[in-house]
Each structure stands twice: as C-alpha cells, then as structure tokens.
C-alpha cells in the first residue's frame, strides 16, 4: 500500500510516497537516487548497504522504509561536511583502505557507528564491530588500521 513516509535524510527532511514495507536500500538508491549505498547480498548478510539510523549501523536492505519514519538516516553521501571529508573517510583515503570500493561505504558507516560508541577501540573491537561487513578484495588489514587512525583523529564526530 502506498503511503507517505517522512524522515530525515542526511540532515534534510524527505517524504517518499511508496509502499512502506519496501526496504530502505532500494528506496534510497532507486526512488531517491542516492546510489552510494551498495547492495551486495540483499539479505542482511554482507553489510554493503549499511547506513546509520539515529547513529546506529543498520542493514538498509533489511530495514523496512516505514520503520525509519520520523527518524534520522545518514548515508555515505551525507558524511562530508562543507566539502571536507569525515575523519573516517580521510583515514580510508590515506590508508588506501579500499580496492574495488564496493564494500567501502558500508565499512565507513559501520566504523562511524563504532567510534560513536567506542571512541578508542583496539584492533579486536574494530574487527568485532565490522565482522558482518564483508570485503571480498581482502582489504581488511588496511581497514583495521584506518579505523584506528580515525579514532585518534576525532573520528567519533
């Protein structure tokens, strides 16, 4: 059933008129044109579609649109501030913590959620937080290093 769902997306109010049971990832990508959120498995098993919902990392491919009504969604497109990269993005850049880049938006947002809760995680805590984010290219060691560096540089912002 089509209905209007309103929420905050990257700091702006948006309303979408569609079936509220559709999953957020497809609404973001297809209805709203924000393609930075990737779909790698469609079933909550890879983390490529990770976005922040009120600051928590969620799998947008398995999050019904209606469940975000009135809440705040942050996607990779909303992470830069006035053209400046977020410290986590900056750290991924300086460590070349990506290869194909398909897992990268989800990794970065997963890391942001972690740093909010645990501003100074050790390597094991980063690994645990990102365990469900898959990277087929094997960029893990660099991602671990990048997230820890970002933690030292105000990545929790």
């Amino acid at each position, binding site marked *: 059933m089509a209905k209007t769902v309103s929420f905050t997306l990257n700091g702006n109010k948006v309303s979408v008129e569609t*079936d509220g049971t*559709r*999953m957020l990832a*497809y609404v973001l*990508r*297809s*209805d709203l*044109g*924000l*393609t*930075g*959120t*990737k*779909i*790698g*498995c*469609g*079933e909550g*098993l*890879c983390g*490529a579609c990770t976005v922040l919902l009120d600051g928590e990392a969620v799998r947008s491919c398995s999050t019904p649109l209606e469940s975000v009504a009135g809440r705040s969604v942050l*996607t*990779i*497109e909303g*992470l*830069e501030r006035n053209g400046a*990269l977020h410290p986590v*993005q900056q750290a*991924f*850049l*300086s460590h*070349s913590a*990506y*290869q*194909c*880049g*398909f*897992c*990268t*938006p989800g990794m*970065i947002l997963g890391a942001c959620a972690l740093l909010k809760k645990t501003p100074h995680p050790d390597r094991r805590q*980063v*690994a*645990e937080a*990102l*365990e*469900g*984010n*898959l*990277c*087929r*290219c*094997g*960029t*893990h*060691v*660099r*991602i*671990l290093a990048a997230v820890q560096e970002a933690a030292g540089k105000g990545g929790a912002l």
Partner: protein
Amino acid sequence: MKRLDFLKATGSLGLFIVFPVFPAFQEPEKIPARLAGYPKDVNAYLKISPDGRVGCFVGKVEMGQGNMTALSMLAAEELDVPLERVDILMGDTDLCPWDGGTWGSLSVWQFGPVLRGAAAEARAILVQMAAERLGVVAARLQVKDGVVSVVGDASRHVSYGELVEGRRIERHLQDVKVKSVTQFTLVGKDAPRMDGRLKVTGAAKYSADIVPPGTLHACLLRPPAHGAMLLSVDVAEAEKVAGVKVIQNGDLTAVLHARPDVAREALSRVKAQYQPSPSTLDDRTIFEHLLKAAPPAKELVAKGSIPIGEARSEHSLEATYLNSYVAHAPLEPHTAVAEWEKGRLTVWASTQAPFPLRGQLAQALGLSPKEVRVITPFLGGGFGGKGIAPQALEAARLARLAGYPVQVAWSRKEEFFLDTFRPAALVKIRSGLDKGGRIAFWEHHVYCAGEAEAETVYDIPHQRILSSGGWMGGNPPGLHPFGIGPWRAPAANTNVYARESHMDALAAKAGMDPLAFRLKHLKNPRMIAVLHAVEKAFGWTPKPAPSGRGVGVACADHRDTLVAAMAEVAVDKKSGEVKVKRVVLAQDMGVVVNPDGARQQMEGCITMGLGYALSEEVRFKDGKVLDQNFDTYRIPRFSQVPEIQTIFIENPSLPAQGGGEPAIVVMGALIANAIHDALGVQMLQLPMTPERVRKALHP
C-alpha cells in the same frame, strides 16, 4: 565525456616521494613491439588538452586492483607530466583502444609496455614540435611538468597544451626509447590511488548505479537446478502487480518494473514447473566422477626416467590432493544496463572484457560491432568471474523488447547459481627420496584444474608432469555439473597446494626442516633469495615438522613473479578450528610500479586465499547449488585476518610483472603445512574446515 570530467575530481593528489632509486640497469629499453591487436597510433591512447591535462585511454577495467593508478603513472612517467594532470578513461569501446580483457594480472606486465611506448613516442613528437617552434635542436630541450624549455634558457619554453592546442598528434616516430629504470621519477614510488576520493564518498559509479531515464529493472526466471527443464510457466499473478511488465521471449521470462525490489517481489509470484535435473552428482561424489570422466592426459614435462628414479629411492610417497569448487563471489553481482537508440546499442556492464563483450553482443543480436558500445563503470571485484557477462545480453534483449532501457542486476542467489566456479580438481603426486635425502623422482598428475604451475620449481632429476583437462575448456560435456572458469590465478592455486604440501611430507620423511629441504632442491637464485628474505623477516628457526609450533612455509613461481611465505597458526584440537595468526610474504616481481598498490594486492591475495584454504567450497546436489548467500558460503572476515607483513625483493633487472595473482597461489599449502607442523597430520583436501581437521586427527 562526463566520466572524464568526473575523474578530474580526483585531481589533487599528493605524492610522498622518498624511495631508494634502483641501481644499475642503465641501458634505456627499446620501445617494445606493440602487441598484436593494440593500435599503433599514439592518439588512440593519449589526448592532450589545451590546459595541458593528459587524457589517457585504455581498454582495461578497474576492478579494485589499482591498474587505473599504475597505468596512469606509466603514462605520466614517460611524458614527464605530474600524475595529478592525468585523467584516465577505461573500458569504453567507443573511446578507448582495443584490449583483449583484464585478467591474468596482465595490465602492467603486458599492456604497460604498450602504453609506455605510446607515451614515449608522444613525448618525442612533442619535443620535436617544440624544437621547431623555439628554433633550437631537440637535443637542447628538456621537459618538466609538461613544459618543454631550452636547457640553460628556461625563459624560452612552450607547454604541451600550447603545442597541441587540443588537436590530434599528426606525426609518427619510430624507434623511440622508453626511459630506463634509473630515469624514473614517479614509477617505483608510492602513489595514492586515483579512485580514492570517489570510493570513500560513494560517488564512484558501478553498473547498478547507471539508470538512464525510463529504465526498467528486470528480474529473470531461473531454473531451480542446472539441467532442469522448464515445463510450464504462469505469470498471471506477477502481471497483477501495478507497473509490472512481463516479457516472455524464447528462453527468457522476465519481470520488469521501474523499481528493482518491486520487480524482484513480482518475480516471486511467477509459478513455474520444471523437470528435475538429470545430474546426480554432489560435492562428495564429484571427485570420483572427475577422475573417471576427465579428458586424456597431456604430458607437460618428461625428464629423465621415472623407473630409474624409483630404483634409486629408499622411500616413496604417494598422495592425492583435492580441492572443491570455489565461487568468485565479488561483492558486486553481475550487472548490466542496456539502452537502444536508433538501432545502436549502449551497454554499461560489470565485465572484465568490454571489447570481447562488444563482439559477443553484436553477434548475438545481429549487429556490426560498430553498432554496439560497451562502457565499463567501476567493477565491484572480478577475480576472473566477470570475464563472461551473460547479463549484458539479457539486458540488451530485454531492452529491445521493452522499448526502454533495462537494467539486469543479478541477486546474490543468481550470482551463486550462474557463476563460473573454480573447478573442483585432484592432484596425484608420487615421489621418492634417495639415500641422501634428495628427491629422486617426482610424478605430478593434475585432473581438471589446468596446467599453470604443475611444473615443479625444484631441481629433480627424474620427473613426469601430466595434466588432464582444466578451466580453459575442452572438457567432455557433463564433466562439471555447472559452469566453470578462471578464478584468480587459475590452476596455480590447485597445483601449488599439492606440490608444496607434498614437499612438506617429503621433508618430514627425510627428517629435515621444511625450509632447508626446499633450499636443498633449489637452484634458482631468485627463489632462494625470496625464501631467505621471508626466513629473516619471520624469524624462522629450523626444526623438522611436526614441531608442534604450527609454523609453515611455501613458495611458488607464478609467471616469473617469485613468492615465498611463512605462517603461524593455532589449531583448536577439539573443534578443529584453525586460526592463522601471522603471515609473512616476500615477492620478487621485477620493477614495482606503485609499491603501495602492489602491497595492497599482496595483502588482498593473502586474505582472500584464507578463504579457499579454510572455508570456501560450493556445496551442490542434483544440479542445485546449495550455497546461495554469504551465510553458508563463508568468505574471510575480520576475525580471521592475521597479522600480515609483505616484503619486496628489489629487482630492477626484470620488467614490471603482474601483482594481482601471485601471492594467492601459496596460501593453501602454506596453511596446510602450518597445520601439519602443529598436529602432525597432512591435510589432503581444501578447504581445511574444522570438520576435516577433526577427521584428519581422528580418522
């Protein structure tokens, strides 16, 4: 030319430039003969715009391996322009020169010299033009940052941009030399990747992100099993979904909608009846089947005489090594978008081979190749699996029938069903040790993997190497229950796993330390140097296996890139769980174009290799692929990632080799050997799952 503008956004790149200059090797290389198929005209590769930016056009694709940056560096180096002034456009069949496909770790090794040659020729022509313009002989000119000036009178200068004024370069020079290693100012130093900013901001476009106006997303009906025949189909319920269009045409049944998830949901309403697949194979019975059904053996090496070697042997050893089907599982599934305009087809596709795909599409659709344009956005991984792109033809056919642009993005389940897996394979090795603990003979017969690295790197007097069938095809029909194909370093993973495992078994038999045993059988000084480098970095203390420590070694020669690695594992004897704690890997890959990029490939190989070593195998039964997503098909995760150290052996005497594959080939044996050292059991099948480790301990 939107994409090129887009790429300009990557402009501001800082270089950190401290790296030892390569010694010796003073002779400038001759321009390499352009490989067959690559155009000779420099304009095919390079365009210089009035503002001095260099557009670099290559038919390769960027799928994560960093060739976008490495190739740009080669062009910038030969032209003497800063890297940040190069814009590279890749994989567009209308704009880029022909290329055979991106695989086999060939971008730098095979195509690199072609691009360097073109850039060197362009530079020489530009200097010649400057000489005419400035009225001095070319020998008195120098080039810096794209500006040609008179040596000793820098006020007399002209830039590339001013010389060319955006036109084509209408000259041709022969026998231009490319730079020698000692002349490099850019190559050999760490350079940040050019795709970085796009990828950390989510701006990088992949095929699924391309949505021309009016695009419909198509989901196709697939059989439940390979070989299952469609008996009947009922699309009535799907057609009831608002906005849905159903297309049935020949072998295609597709549900289309403007929203991909709505199309997917509507497809689930299609009812179809199938005749079951005739296949009765499963992942346990497959090996016996392969052994029986494999094509006849081809003899790759026959050296000395096996009977003589046997007669000289005190001990002999025989073992069979198995490995399962493995999926490519790139994080981005196969995707394509097709748009028809006035009879001309444009396809955006996640493909490793845009030019071959153009030909295939033209042929299948009754067009001339000129009527087809393939554009390759970024790929979310390939690993050999995107060498074929059947989704592109599906999208093209559906777009023609629908009268709208059509996107086909395979679901993860389709990806696991339609992927061309790394073939399951067997390797039988027979060998013997003489009185002095030397290998007297070696017989290696590989079934169904392929030939790469079946040959041994060791000095053995009596050898026979055989290969029956492989990933390249030519197999009897029905050999495999589904499609197979090349998987990162095809065949080599299988052969090296068997060879290097067997070397450890022999070392144990000889009562020798596995490193010392290898060195005793090696003549190649490069291989010896790589092993010593890793020995030192790892802190290897010699002891025969099993020492209980859980340390292992393996080495390989992958197309002239030499690799040696050591690892330390911890094995939980009760659960059979293997934790890889540390991997040190050394590589001699000739001249290294972008060291940081090459390191990244080595780390990627090590990490990805953990998967086929420990957890990845495709389970199947009666034509059905039982693994359909990442819950049961386990690729490496953060908790499994070891401490990794990578080492380059400086080797300026060898041109740059490929770095995307070599390091992965040692991973199976490396971990098998470390487990052997820990537990004293040989692991004869990959992946070495906890269940298989328990079984090996308590047969």
